[in-house]
C-alpha cells in the first residue's frame, strides 16, 4: 500500500551567514502492506515527521520515489491526496467552531455535497463517540476529544491510507488506550494506518510492524516480536550471598544458558532462550550445590533494547 525507495530530504539553515545543510531523511526504504498498522519509531528529530510529511504530499522529497496505493507520489500528488488522510501532531481546527461544523467543512473540502458531508459527519461523530459534544466549540475539548476529532477529520473522505503524526503524544493513559482502540477499529474497516511515535509501548502494543529510524535512516524493521527476538533471548539476573565463582562453575555448561556474565562481585547475568523455563532449572541447580540465592529477576528484551543494540543509545535517553 505504501512503497518508498530511498526517500531523501535535507534542510538548509542559515546562521551567522553560514549555510549548513541538515540531512533530515537520508534514504528511507519502506514497504507497508494493506490493512496494516505500521509504526515509525524513533527519537525526536530522527526524521519521522519529515518522512511522514513527504509521504502525505506536504513536503517535496529531494530524492527517491514513493507510491501510495499505486499512485506515484512525485508525479501525481493530487492523486495521492485523494486516497490518503493526514492528521498532524496538533491543531488544525478553529477555536470557535463546533466539531460538527469542522467535519462538514472537511467533507466539503474533499468535494462532497452538503447532504453527503452532513450524513458522514453524523456517522463520524457517533463512531468516534463525539456526538455528545458535537455542537460544542473545539476550544472546550479535552485532549482526548481533540485527538478523536482530529482523526475523524482525517478520515471523513474514507481514505485508503491514514497518516497519523504522534497520535497519542501528551494524552493521559486512558485517552491513549481509547485512541488505540480507534486506530484498531479503522484498521478493521480496511484502512492502512501509518503512524509515528516515540513511545515504545505504543509501537509494541498497537503496531503490526514497525520501522526504527535514527538520524534519518532506518536501522531496523519488522514485527515487534521479530525485532526483539533478533537481538537476544531473555536475561535472568541473579544475586548471591557469596562471590560468583562457584555459581559460574555450576551454570556455565548448562544447555539452556547461552551466555553468562558476572555483574559486580555477587551478581550474574544469564542469557537464555526462554526465561520462564530457565528459572526453575537455575534455582534447582544452585540449591543442589548448596549455593544460596538472594535475588532472581527475569528481564525480557524491549524495543528499547532493540534500539540500544542498533544505535548504541537508549531511546529513553535520546
Amino acid at each position: 500500500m505504501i512503497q518508498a525507495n530511498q526517500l531523501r530530504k535535507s534542510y538548509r539553515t542559515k546562521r551567522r551567514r553560514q549555510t549548513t545543510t541538515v540531512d533530515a531523511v537520508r534514504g528511507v526504504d519502506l514497504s507497508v502492506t494493506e490493512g496494516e498498522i505500521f509504526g515509525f519509531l524513533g527519537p525526536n528529530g530522527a526524521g519521522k515527521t519529515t518522512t511522514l510529511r513527504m509521504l502525505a504530499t506536504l513536503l517535496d522529497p529531494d530524492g527517491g520515489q514513493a507510491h501510495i496505493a499505486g499512485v506515484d507520489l512525485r508525479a501525481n500528488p493530487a492523486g495521492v491526496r485523494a486516497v490518503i488522510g493526514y492528521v498532524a501532531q496538533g491543531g488544525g481546527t478553529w477555536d470557535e467552531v463546533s466539531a460538527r461544523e469542522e467535519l462538514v467543512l472537511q467533507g466539503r473540502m474533499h468535494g462532497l455535497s452538503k447532504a453527503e458531508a452532513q450524513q458522514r459527519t453524523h456517522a463520524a461523530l457517533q463512531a468516534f463517540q463525539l456526538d455528545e459534544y458535537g455542537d460544542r466549540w473545539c476550544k472546550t475539548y479535552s485532549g482526548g476529544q481533540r485527538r478523536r476529532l482530529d482523526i475523524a477529520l482525517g478520515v471523513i473522505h474514507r481514505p485508503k491510507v491514514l497518516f497519523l503524526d504522534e497520535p497519542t503524544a501528551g494524552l493521559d493513559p486512558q485517552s491513549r488506550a481509547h485512541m488505540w482502540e480507534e486506530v484498531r477499529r479503522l484498521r478493521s474497516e480496511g484502512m492502512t494506518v501509518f503512524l509515528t511515535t516515540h513511545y515504545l509501548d505504543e509501537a509494541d502494543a498497537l503496531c503490526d510492524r514497525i520501522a526504527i529510524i535514527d538520524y534519518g535512516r532506518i536501522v531496523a524493521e519488522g514485527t515487534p516480536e521479530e525485532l526483539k527476538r533478533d537481538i537476544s533471548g531473555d536475561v535472568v539476573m541473579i544475586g548471591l550471598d557469596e562471590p560468583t565463582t562457584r555459581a559460574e562453575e555450576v551454570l556455565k555448561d548448562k544447555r539452556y544458558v547461552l551466555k553468562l556474565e558476572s555483574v559486580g562481585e555477587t551478581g550474574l547475568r544469564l542469557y537464555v532462550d526462554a526465561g520462564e523455563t530457565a528459572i526453575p532449572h537455575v534455582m534447582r541447580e544452585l540449591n543442589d550445590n548448596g549455593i544460596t540465592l538472594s535475588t532472581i529477576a527475569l528481564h525480557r528484551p524491549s524495543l528499547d533494547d532493540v534500539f540500544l543494540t542498533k544505535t548504541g543509545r537508549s531511546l529513553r535517553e535520546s
Partner: protein
Amino acid sequence: MKLLRDTWLLYQRQLLLMWRSPIWLFFALAQPVTYLFLFAPFLQKALLPMGASTIQDAYNIYVPGLLVVMCFYTGLFAGFGLVAELRMGILERARVTPISRSALLLGRAARDVTAMLIQCALITILSVPFGLTVPLPNLLVAYALLTIIGLMAAAISYDIALTIKNENALGSLLNSIGQPIALLAGVLLPLAIAPVWIQKLALANPFSWATNSVRALFWGSLTDPVVWQGTLIVSVLAVVTVLLSVRLYSRNIR
C-alpha cells in the same frame, strides 16, 4: 467553477468565525471613532483653504480620508490572520485535501473585505449626525473603490506575511510601511494644503489617487476626472497584487 465553489465554502466559514467573535469590530472601530469625534471637529479652520466653510464641509472632506485609511490599515493587517492560520495548522489540514489553493486565499480576502465594508458603513452612519451628506450613487461608487483599495492592501499584506511568516516582525514592518503611505495619501489632511514637493511625491502613491477619488465622490462630483483616474490606477494595481499573492500562496501552500 470549482474555484468559485471552494472560495464560497471558505468565505462562509470565515464569516461564521467573524460572527462568533464580534470583538474585532470594537477594536477595528475604536480608533476611527476617536478620530471622528476628537479630531474632525477642529478641522474646519484647517480645511478653509479647501473650501470648507462649515463643519459639514469639514466632515465631507475628512470622512473619506478616514474611510480610506481604515480600509488601508485593515487590509494591511490582514496578513496577521493568515499567519495565525498557518501557525494553527489550519492550512496544513486544508493542504492535504483537493481544495483549490487560490480559494483558501480568496475566501480569506473576501472576509477581510467584508469586514472593511461593515466598518465603512458604520463610520458613514456615525458621521451623518455631524452633517455628512453624500448622494447615494456616489456613496456606492466610493464603497466599490474602497473595496478595491482594501483588497489591494490585503494582497500586499499577504505577500509580506507569506514571505516573512513571523507575526512579530510583521507588525513593525507593516507599521513602518503603512505610515508613510497613509500620510502621503493625504488621509488626515488633504494634500492640497501640503508643500509642493510632498504633493509631487504623492503623485507616485496610488493610495493618494484613491483618496482623492473617494474625496471627490463625497464632495459630490461623480464626474471629476480624478474619480476614473484613481479607480483605474487602483484597479490595475489590485489585480496585479492579488494575482501575485495567489501565485505566491499557491507556491508556498501547494
